[in-house]
């Protein structure tokens, strides 16, 4: 069974330029692999810069288009990978992947990971909140709520900053891969205008 939420486009890749990184299930603890998220995100962001050449007459005091795209892509890829690794259902043996597609006026990130079947309901409730609230209000409320807690498990800010600060469009696809054992994969799609 497949379900789509938010801004998810389920068409085959129309872009001819894309990059995919895959991560096989690992027995190495996440803490030791954490650095890989940043390295992979930096690599993807760096790869993108080829397609946004710097102009020679660019004013040094202004951030160039290239630097802006690189920074935004690096932030988004890193957050998506951190989430995918954190929420991945390690017992499923399902790989995590991140894909970057280049289009004329936008780029798309698709990250796929498995999720614990028991956590799907909470995730869907969060998606509902994210897609039916004012993102700025939600962002500030989240910060105030986090400030009252000493040991929150996650900040809940990753996707919100993408929407608020980077004007990204986000969608999700939930797919049941196998019934026995139950394996559910989620693809998070983030579209960024460039």
């Amino acid at each position, binding site marked *: 069974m497949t379900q789509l939420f938010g801004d998810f486009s389920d068409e085959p890749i129309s872009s001819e330029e894309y990059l995919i990184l895959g991560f096989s299930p690992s027995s190495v603890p996440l803490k030791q692999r954490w650095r890989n998220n940043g390295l992979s995100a930096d690599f993807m962001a760096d790869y993108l810069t080829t397609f946004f050449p710097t102009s020679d007459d660019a004013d040094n005091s202004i951030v160039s288009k290239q630097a802006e795209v690189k920074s935004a892509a690096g*932030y988004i890829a890193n957050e998506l990978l*951190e989430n995918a690794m954190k929420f991945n259902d390690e017992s499923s043996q399902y790989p995590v992947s991140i894909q970057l597609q280049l289009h004329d006026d936008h780029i798309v990130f698709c990250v796929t990971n498995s999720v614990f079947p028991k956590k799907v309901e909470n995730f869907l409730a969060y998606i509902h909140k994210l897609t039916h609230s004012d993102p700025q209000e939600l962002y*500030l409320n989240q910060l*105030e709520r*986090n400030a009252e807690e000493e040991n929150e498990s996650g900040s809940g*800010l990753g996707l919100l900053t993408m929407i608020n600060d980077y004007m990204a469009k986000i969608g999700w696809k939930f797919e049941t891969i196998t019934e026995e054992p139950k394996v559910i994969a989620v693809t998070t799609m983030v579209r960024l205008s460039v």
Partner: protein
Amino acid sequence: MEIKTEDYHVSYDTETTTIYCRGSLRLSGMEEYTPIVQLFTQVVDMEPALISFNLTELQFLNSSGINVLSKFIIKVRQKKKVQMVVQGSQKIPWQGKSLKNLQRLMPNLQLEWL
């Protein structure tokens, strides 16, 4: 007060009452951010008249880091006598996108672009 690793450097200069964050902060959650949170809390507890928060060399910050910075701003806001200046760099793109949110948390916070 100082925390220095291969990736980042957080320090407090008592003479200028300035906290510097440099490098790249992408730690894996609140637990790993604890030493940095403790440094921030120590500074807030000293209640200097003004805290300068210098981020001009902070190249990267993940969402857990944004959470840590925001919690710090809220702690400062609660100390009514402490003024706050955040110093950012327009050459670092994420700062142009995200630092304004700190001002929303503390309206009388001054945001300076260096």
